[in-house]
């Protein structure tokens, strides 16, 4: 009886905690946004600036995700299958973007590509715009979402071992063939899982992009920057409407994660 009570008590506590911190706030925003029906939210979303912000976010994500997927797989293969000097360092470096403040990331890139930065004058001479333009925003986004694919793939690669790969090699398969036919199919769920996490991070990046974008309205303003801009312009309805779209994407991400997670072990 006492155990049942403590079990129920803990369950209530955990659920209340999640409700107060996670679900409650989001529910209020949903409620506030659709308080007056879909019309106002739709109008707030379809202003040219907001549409442009979403377009920019999608462009950045469309570049950053494939880059990080390839990079993540290569890094994971290097970490698990190869032995080389500085492997420990690579291992530590790959986690660093997870622990770093996005503002620090943005500042570091700002100092590298800014007018007084290391590459600044070289780029300036050639008329290449990086800072306060799309390239810097893409680089910042790639930086912050760098580790996700590698982190998902590394444990899976360790688990499957390299017996099959070696068998393929002995049977005369080239390295490339082995990768496409043997390695990639067995890590595919880990890769997909990593890609989902990377996509979520890219769509939601704020701090690093805020520093390197210059936040030029209609030009270098992503969806997340637009949320902040609308909030500061006292257009709460606009900020909520964009937030709702981003939150719906986040919920889709959660659904995808839940569907894929159980398959990880069996893949």
């Amino acid at each position, binding site marked *: 009886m006492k155990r049942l009570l403590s*079990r129920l008590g803990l369950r209530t506590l955990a659920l209340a905690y*999640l409700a107060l911190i996670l679900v409650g706030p989001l529910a209020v925003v949903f409620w506030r946004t659709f308080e007056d029906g879909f019309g106002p939210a739709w109008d707030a979303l379809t202003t040219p600036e907001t549409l442009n912000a979403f377009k920019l976010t999608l462009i950045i994500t469309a570049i950053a995700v494939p880059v990080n997927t390839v990079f993540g797989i290569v890094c994971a293969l290097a970490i698990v299958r190869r032995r080389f000097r500085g492997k420990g360092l690579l291992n530590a470096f*790959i986690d660093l973007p997870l622990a770093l*403040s996005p*503002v620090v990331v943005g*500042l570091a890139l700002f100092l590298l590509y800014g007018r007084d*930065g290391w590459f600044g004058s070289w780029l300036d001479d050639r008329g290449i715009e990086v800072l306060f333009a799309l390239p810097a925003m893409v680089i910042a986004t790639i930086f912050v979402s760098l580790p996700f694919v590698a982190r998902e793939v590394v444990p899976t690669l360790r688990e499957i071992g390299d017996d099959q790969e070696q068998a393929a090699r002995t049977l005369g398969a080239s390295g490339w063939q082995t990768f496409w036919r043997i390695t990639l199919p067995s890590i595919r769920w880990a890769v997909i899982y990593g890609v989902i996490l990377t996509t979520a991070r890219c769509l939601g990046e704020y701090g690093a992009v805020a520093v390197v974008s210059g936040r030029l309205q209609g030009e270098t303003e992503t969806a*997340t920057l637009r949320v902040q801009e609308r909030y500061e312009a006292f257009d709460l309805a606009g900020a909520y409407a964009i937030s709702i779209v981003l939150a719906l994407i986040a919920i889709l991400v959660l659904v995808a994660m839940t569907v894929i997670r159980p398959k990880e072990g069996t893949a």
Partner: protein
Amino acid sequence: MVMVGLPLAALMWEATSEGTQSFRDAVSSPEAVAALKLTLGASLAVAVLNAVLGTITAWVLVRDDFRGKTVVNAIIDLPFALPTIVAGLTLLALYGPTSPVGIDVAFSRTSIVLALMFVTLPFVVRTVQPVLQELDPELEEAAHSLGASTWTTFRRIVLPNILPGILSGVALAFAKAVGEFGSLVIITGNIPFETEVSSVHIYGRIESGDSAGAAAVAVVLLAISFATLVSIGVIRHFATRHDR
């Protein structure tokens, strides 16, 4: 490597470009010190809260059974999927001036803790959950049948096993909390000496054109992040050595 290393090298360079004296001045300016103290204090508080609430949540998700557990389990990852700026805005909607329940903590230090709790929620849950799943419930049953109370069983049987998981989750949450920016800009109001954390302080210095000062404070945050990562490595090392 180049991708991560080069920008950080540029950061270190800028921080020290005007000599160690100006580095020290930037880091020890009253506003920077106040921001750093606040950042560390709030992050520590949030890390401790996470250790307790995260462990309870993980325990409920593994050992308890109820309707809708799959949904609850999926919701844990919401802070990973939701943009931080949206997180800040949603927290403000419930706990701000327009709160439907009349709780207003906006622009106060409580709001910092609240936002950090949101963004760090998954870490401890997700590091403790797999360890608990591996842990045989029969051990706990045995302790119970020998007359141990729930608390004793937890303290003597469960806790020693999940402690490395809790610690590495706490360290991850701490690292995330120290660097957090997006969720804080809206809800804290960024009042210097009051609710301005280090990342916001750095951002302010960049905006006002003091990139050397910003870089100096950023190097301090970088050092904290790095130290936290190293300690996670150490925890993992000891945890796996124990298994062998």
